[in-house]
């Protein structure tokens, strides 16, 4: 079982501990998860899947909650629509 997993965040590789969530990957890369309707950068707030601030596009599917999604090797995470 590898101790690290690498995911792609906006085209750049980010390494996280195995079992980490996509939100953790964004956080460790210093990336906001989304842009709000008036253009503010946003990051996760609640950490438990209810605030929807951590929404990202994963492998082409939009509106996936990053804090409730485990990182898998090579997944493509995009924070801009």
């Amino acid at each position: 079982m590898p101790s690290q997993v690498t995911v792609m965040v906006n085209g750049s590789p980010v390494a996280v501990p195995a079992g980490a969530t996509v939100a953790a990957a964004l956080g460790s890369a210093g990336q906001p998860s989304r842009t709000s309707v008036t253009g503010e950068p946003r990051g996760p707030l609640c950490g438990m899947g209810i605030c929807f601030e951590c929404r990202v596009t994963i492998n082409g599917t939009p509106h996936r909650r990053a804090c409730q999604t485990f990182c898998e090797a090579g997944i493509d995470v995009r924070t801009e629509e």
Partner: protein
Amino acid sequence: MSKVAYDAVIVGCGIVGAACAMEFARRGMRVAAVDREMVGGGATAAGMGHIVAMDDSDAQFTLTRYSQQLWQQLRPELPDDVEYEQCGTVWVAADEEEMNEVRRKHDYYRSRGVPTEVLESRRLKELEPNLRDGFVGGLLVPEDGVLYPPCAARFLIERAQECGAKIKTGVCVTKIEQGHVRLSDGGEIAGGIMVNAAGITAPELTAGIEVKKRKGHLVITDRYPGFLRHQLVELGYLKSAHSVSSDSVAFNVQPRRTGQILIGSSRQYGAESDAVDNVILTRMLQRAQEYMPAIGALSAIRVWTGFRAATPDKLPLIGPVPGDRTRFLAAGHEGLGITTSLGTARILADHIHGRAPEIPIEPYLPSRAAKEFAHA
């Protein structure tokens, strides 16, 4: 308790009541408008907010087209949160029979000055890539639009207030009598004329009118900008709207300016409860997926219901209560309240002031019904 006698008392601050309040106030009448809850909170809040030229009958077409043009004239003054978008409607034809209907509509609209374009299959797909393959074609009506009704109603009321109208919310009108309306808080508002614009509760205030509740469901998704460009309607929509008795669904989706997709539509008679009906909901969403398979993957964040005020002949009641000179109706607009609100207010105001309205009011007069209206 009001000591002032108003020139006009409008019952109901939905889109129709709000339009009446604005129109009457800007003509110099002293207006009071009352709503039992809030401005734009009834069917106005529940509906799709479309502004469409609809041709179920000549009279319906005339009123919707007239009113649509009034919205276009008002457009530059509409604040941003009214979200007026001239996105156009595309009527979708699933087979040759529906394509014939497309051609008929095209001729009908064209001969009456409404720009339309017949779309063949490939062009339809170009305009709306998320429609499934295999549609025969469609009809584009570019001047149709959408807006966000609660803010539109609020805007119209604000306009009325700028002309001196007084608005009272959170108070129910219990009776419309000669010369005044009675309120649930024990008060009264005196007025020269009274307008019943109370939508589905209109029959409670004017006896003998045939206005029935017609329940609808809507679903709204999260934001998917670019998924949908035009309002899309299946040609079976008219069959659904036309039907007098059965429960029906018809494909009707709309892009909102937020990028959210509004999914409808459903019609049920005799459904009293405002609870979401799973049977109808699933039929409606399955229909939507039949037309746009990709819609299945979108995230639905809310479902709600609402009640349209429907009349037997699909035309609203606009004009005096038969035999009465001071009490009027502006109700029963079914799914076309937003569209026809401005036109309704105009022709009613013209009629009251003894001026010839810009379109004939006869088809909408309450007296057209064979039944006699009892005096309240």
